């Protein structure tokens, strides 16, 4: 073991001092909450007095008696379907923008515009577009003759979830397109030229060269999409509040409702534990399915 010189010791002190603020925040707002969630989920908590031990009481209630939990879980899974849709559309867009046309940068900006904006405002705009009486969508559908009656998108069981998914796809489209575009730009053009010389048509070039080499980017988008669907609180809250009758209630909005509307913090903690475990499992699976290649993008950076 090397002897630490006073200068080396002081340097270590400085290092830890520099790490302190960030580590402090992570400990306080990431690690501690994670652990506390677990502990809280096993307790009966109340604002007055001390929490009491409850064991698996909340989990029992959640899995066996709570229909809303299963509904919200199912809704979250359905909401995840927005990712493949968005990725497919974004891929098409990326291929279009990648083509050597003038004004690529402008198109890229216009398409990406929706992402950095306040989700609350985006939710309000879409809520209004979907409105039954004054919404633009109903007007378009009626004037194009596609329907004869107005549809109350956000108030109907069948249309609420697809409507919300459409809005979510709209917002994330630009982001996925940027990621896929970056991936496209790393594919060397010699491959395409060689394939063209070998007589491959555009479709084969797409399937055999582009898609396989884009796999890391596609799986990155998929993981981002999965995480997004577990954390998409703003959009749902503003557009439907989880209604009608829990048709659009995601696990995260249910957690918020349980904790801050129903004041059942302990139950919400249990729900959060389930959310977290689910999220970790899904991202691990997605990473495995990608062959660990999403991490390969990181190594290449």
């Amino acid at each position, binding site marked *: 073991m090397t002897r630490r010189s006073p200068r080396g010791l002081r340097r270590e002190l400085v290092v*830890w001092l520099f790490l302190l*603020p960030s580590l402090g*925040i992570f400990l306080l707002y*990431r690690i501690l909450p994670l652990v506390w969630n677990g502990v809280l989920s096993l307790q009966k908590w109340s604002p007055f007095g001390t929490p009491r031990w409850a064991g698996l009481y909340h989990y029992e209630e959640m899995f066996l008696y709570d229909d809303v939990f299963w509904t919200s879980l199912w809704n979250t899974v359905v909401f995840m379907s927005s990712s493949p849709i968005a990725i497919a559309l974004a891929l098409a867009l990326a291929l279009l923008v990648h083509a050597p046309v003038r004004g690529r940068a402008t198109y890229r900006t216009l398409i990406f515009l929706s992402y950095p904006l306040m989700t*609350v405002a985006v939710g309000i705009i879409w809520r209004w577009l979907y409105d039954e009486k004054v919404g633009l969508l109903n007007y378009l559908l009626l004037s194009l003759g596609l329907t004869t009656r107005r549809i109350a998108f956000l108030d109907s069981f069948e249309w609420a979830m697809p409507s919300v998914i459409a809005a979510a796809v709209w917002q994330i489209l630009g982001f996925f397109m940027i990621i896929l575009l970056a991936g496209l730009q790393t594919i060397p053009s010699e491959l395409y030229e060689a394939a063209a010389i070998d007589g491959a048509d555009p479709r084969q070039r797409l399937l055999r060269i582009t898609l396989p080499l884009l796999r890391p980017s596609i799986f990155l988008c998929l993981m981002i999409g999965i995480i997004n669907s577990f954390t998409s609180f703003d959009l749902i809250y503003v557009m439907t509040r989880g209604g009608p009758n829990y048709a659009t209630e995601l696990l995260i909005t249910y*957690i918020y409702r349980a904790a801050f509307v129903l004041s059942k*913090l302990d139950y919400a903690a249990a729900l959060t534990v389930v959310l977290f475990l689910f999220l970790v499992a899904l991202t691990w699976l997605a990473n495995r399915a990608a062959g660990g290649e999403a991490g390969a993008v990181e190594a290449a950076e």
Partner: protein
Amino acid sequence: MKRAPTWPVHVALVGVSLVMLGPFYWVLKTSLTGENIFAYPPALLPVAPHVFYYVDVWYYIPFVRFLLNSAIVSTIVVLASTAFNAMAAYALTQPFRGKRAVILLLLSCMLIPFQATIVPAYLITKELGLLNSHLGLALPLCSTIICIFVFKASFDAVPRSLLDAARLDGLPEWRIILLIMLPLSTSAIATNVILSFIWSWNNFLWPLIVVRNEAMQTLPLGLSTFLSYLENTTGALYAFCVMVLAPGLLLFLLEQRRFIQGLTSGATKG
């Protein structure tokens, strides 16, 4: 190689751009004319536009208070996070005992989304007495792992020879940081500033939990509360939307490239 016609691509891209921009244009138009709320069918171009709905928003809603709250919180977040992240990144460029454990800890923290922490974070903020305060609103965002690694990459890229020469010259460490490493990392600083600003400016869930009275609301929260008071039958709501979107839009247009780079480099780090 045969040159394919480019106009179909243009047509498709213009179509998509219209779909992406359509909602904004529609909101802008309605905020200027107030039609399409009761009038039907709506006109495509604004008819008799006026800015009086914006005047309404300015006076009837405490817009300035919301703006101020958002600005204060965002300023705290930007300043604190840039400082803390840079410090942590610098620490990570130095060898020390337990470094690998710290890096592992940070990487595993990336797996924990903010939404998975809201219940205890609320309790912690309450215990600290920071509920309904600017600091309480800002604190969880004051350090992000993505930005730490962005800084670290930037610091690692500083040529070793430069640092060695400076150390040989006897320059104290803090001067090395200030005079050599930071000026060479303006890109990382800018990325940090932009990302932390956008995240804190757009943040909705945390203010929703922490803010307890109207005076402390930030812009997203104020917008959502206004919606629940007055539904969507006032032009003022749409003027509010436009006013709320304007700063984010302006910043994005000014700093597009850096914004996109920051987001995608952050994304690829997990």
